[in-house]
């Protein structure tokens, strides 16, 4: 079973979705079977984590079959130290997001849970694919369920948000498709072997001519920067996050954004190393702008969900900054920050969602002084606020700290500016917390009920993980040491050769 574990992880949710589509007569049945399926999916990732050999940099659990012989496309899967954490994050958050939707989703439950499971399968596929064609299929296939999730179960302006999300992402990724085809032919003409094999093409990376690298890099950059989202491409994000239902926001912030940065790590760095080095200043500036600008915009938001959405722009800036520092601590910090941001922001969206179910408002001004009414909620919210602010002992701190350490080595000025972002994040999060939970009580909220057992139940794993990564990050970083080391060595070899 272990040799096919990745295929099982990809196809199990799809099978579960088909099962629900056919056999589910009531929403309740669909809801519970989707939850059971997602928990089984998560349990399946545990042997993946434990059987993973941390001492190896290369791909593990590799599966490879012929798929489309006419174009030399293979069904080729594998995980390394970077992608395995993302797979873990995906299955972990999906299970929690599904459990978190039980009361939020009131209409057309069957379709919702089917979409969630299909989405989960596509997300796992994106992180496991080692064939460009396969990767692209999963990357795009994700759009349809996400589009439906936002558009059917979203808020007031859901149609606008869904279409904007869809078209933005599509516009970015079609250029990526052209870059992939161009790589296919370039690699073919250089070696005589036409293939979409990501590893083979990555190994050739340094030998592609510079102009070609720049074009390919820009095409990839466009696709990934929209997904992350990096500064000028971020405008879809607040709309999509705010309008999406809770589970949609959790998955969007928790997993989908990570695909952009994962793409930088997996494709831009190894395949276009020279262009990547040349574009470091651009990426670093855009990252710093995202950190500061995202934070400042978050500060003035009146809607809690929008505030968290903009904070994502800011936090993801740290990830790109860390990755483009091109050193061990920067990249490891970036990956850890991806992981932590997924957990913390996911948790914040869940918390906002569950209070919204009770009050039907997300405006900060409508709240105030609820800490006394809902103490458990206030405590849990505080934990994740602190996590977002990067308080030491929480996951967020380790990630941002490593990023800043790495960034200081590579570009001290930008790192200094980025450090300001940490302060900004403290300002908007704490100020928001103060306005929502303290101060005078809004009379309308006298009957506010605290978290139910189910809600506490799904927050507990998130709390455990956020402290775990904060107190003993080695559990997670140990997976990536070797893979990141190999990546850094590859980049360093290129930059030495350039000098």
């Amino acid at each position: 079973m272990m040799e096919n574990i990745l295929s099982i992880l990809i196809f199990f949710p799809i099978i579960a979705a088909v099962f629900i589509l056919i056999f589910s007569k009531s929403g309740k049945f669909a809801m519970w079977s989707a939850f059971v399926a997602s928990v089984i999916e998560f349990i399946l990732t545990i042997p993946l984590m434990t059987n993973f050999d941390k001492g190896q940099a290369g791909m593990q659990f590799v599966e490879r079959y012929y798929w489309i012989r006419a174009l030399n496309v293979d069904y080729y899967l594998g995980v390394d130290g970077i992608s395995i954490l993302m797979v873990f994050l995906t299955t972990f958050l999906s299970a929690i997001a599904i459990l978190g939707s039980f009361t939020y989703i009131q209409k057309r439950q069957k379709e919702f849970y089917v979409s969630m499971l299909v989405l989960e399968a596509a997300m796992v596929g994106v992180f496991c694919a080692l064939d460009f064609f396969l990767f692209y299929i999963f990357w795009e296939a994700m759009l349809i369920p996400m589009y439906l999730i936002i558009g059917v179960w979203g808020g007031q302006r859901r149609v606008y948000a869904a279409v904007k999300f869809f078209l933005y992402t599509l516009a970015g990724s079609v250029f990526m498709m052209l870059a992939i085809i161009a790589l296919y032919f370039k690699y073919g003409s250089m070696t005589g072997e036409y293939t979409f094999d990501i590893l083979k093409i990555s190994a050739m990376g340094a030998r592609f001519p510079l102009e070609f690298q720049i074009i390919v890099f820009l095409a990839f950059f466009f696709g990934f920067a929209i997904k992350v989202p990096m500064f000028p491409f971020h405008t879809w994000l607040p709309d999509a996050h705010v309008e999406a239902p809770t589970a949609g926001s959790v998955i969007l912030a928790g997993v989908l954004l990570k695909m952009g940065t994962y793409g930088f790590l997996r494709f831009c760095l190894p395949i276009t190393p020279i262009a990547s080095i040349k574009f470091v200043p651009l990426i670093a500036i855009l990252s710093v702008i995202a950190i500061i600008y995202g934070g400042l915009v978050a500060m003035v938001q009146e809607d809690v969900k929008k505030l968290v959405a903009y904070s994502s722009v800011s936090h993801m800036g740290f990830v790109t900054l860390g990755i483009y520092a091109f050193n061990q601590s920067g990249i490891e910090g970036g990956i850890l920050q991806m992981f932590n941001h997924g957990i913390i922001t996911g948790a914040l969206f869940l918390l906002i969602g569950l209070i919204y179910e009770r009050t039907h408002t997300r405006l900060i001004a409508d709240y105030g002084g609820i800490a006394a009414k809902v103490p458990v909620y206030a405590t849990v919210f505080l934990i994740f606020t602190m996590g977002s602010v990067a308080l030491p002992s929480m996951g967020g701190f380790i990630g941002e700290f490593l990023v800043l350490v790495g960034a200081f080595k590579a570009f001290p000025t930008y790192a200094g500016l980025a450090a300001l972002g940490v302060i900004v994040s403290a300002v908007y999060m704490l100020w928001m917390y103060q306005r929502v939970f303290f101060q005078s009580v809004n009379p309308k909220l006298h009957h506010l009920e605290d978290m139910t057992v189910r809600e506490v139940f799904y927050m507990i794993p998130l709390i455990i993980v956020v402290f775990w990564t904060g107190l003993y990050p080695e559990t997670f970083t140990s997976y990536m040491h070797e893979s990141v080391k190999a990546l850094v060595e590859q980049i360093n070899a290129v930059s030495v050769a350039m000098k």
Partner: protein
Amino acid sequence: MISNLVSIMPEVLMTIFGLILIAIDVMTRKNSKSGVGYFGIFFIVLAVLASIPVGGFKIFGFGQTLVWDMYSFAFFCVFAIAYILTTIGSVDYLRDRDILKGEFYIITFFSIVGMMFMVSATDLAVLYAGMETMAISMYILAGFEKKNLKSNEAGLKYFIIGAFSSAIFLFGLSYIYGYTGSTKYAEIAYMIKSNGLNNFNIKIGMVMMLAGLAFKISAVPFHMWAPDVYNGAPTPATGFMTVAPKAAAMGAIVRFAWVALEPAAQQWQLFFSILAVLTMTYGNLVALAQNNVKRMLAYSAISHAGYMLIGVVSMNELGYQAIAFYTFVYAFMNIGAFTILSLMKNRGIIEDERLESFAGLGKKYPLISLAMLIFMFSLAGIPPLAGFMGKFYIFTSAIKSGVIWLAIVGVINSVIACYYYMRVTIFMYFKEAEYDVTVDMRPASFIASLIAVIFVLVIGVFPSFFMDIVKFMIV
């Protein structure tokens, strides 16, 4: 002698079957005319099975005016698929409008004979004969709903403009004949090779002839007839008309470009790329503004012709394979969409095919909406659906031959196109029903759309079978 017979055998077979169909039509009772269509399906499957060329098979007939090879066969398969899906999908529509006549199926059947001649022609005169056979059948199909003014208008319009385009084609042909002294592709190629393409007369001839063909694929600026005709014709006939004649004309253009223009291929790249860019962009931009789904699909059919033209521009084998593959995919997704569209009945005050009719359909008819969603996203080219594979193949061919700018225009267009396909899904899933709309799915249409859905999904995930069909074809 034998080779003559073998090369024309599929067409002969189809003609005989067509005549038998007429006899069957005479013998069937008025209310069971759909039987004629089902016999047609049986016959066309027989004809396809009987004419499979063995690997590398290529047989010329009648002094190199006609050829039967894997290429002709691949397109024959496309026509057969279009015929089968249209026949099954049209029964309910035609019955509801009281135009369920055997002629519908017989004319469609005979039009395929014409299309086969178009694709297997290696002589301009044969090409013209095939084109006319196809075109006349299409005029009748467009005007088939004789009590509907719009359908009459479509038939007449198609006829006048079609006759006009045929005349242009013939006029161009006369120039080519005058210059090269032959109508055979091989000899035209020989003349071009030895004398070059710099003669003004042959240029005029080529442009006019290609314009005549461009009419048939509704390439911009030769598209004026398309929206009205596609909109006015009975919906299942539109499904057929957007797929099969387009595939046939594409096949003819490809064979002409590949065989006759081969020595001067590079010089024609610009001509075809302008045509491709105009066709894609115009089709998509106008489709954006449509509120009638049938009309929107008519414009989208124009833009799809533009994508296929990218394959012609590529001027490499991959491009021709891509076009053939694309027509396969397009047959399934477009006829599937038209089948569902033909079943929409709005009891409100607006037309059946208005976008508003789709509002809230997702709730009322979840399975039909899911099928429509799959067709729409496949037409938009979103993986893992078949439409994506087709587009991917097309763009691959463009990048291979170095026309990257055209590939970029193509992908930008497919993003624009995505929006109007999405509008249908927006209405189906995100809006509440405004009118009392029924979709009367009866067994025949159910089977047609089910086949289309299955193939769109299967080709999307396992395209190998169809890619192998096109991979072994040699022009």
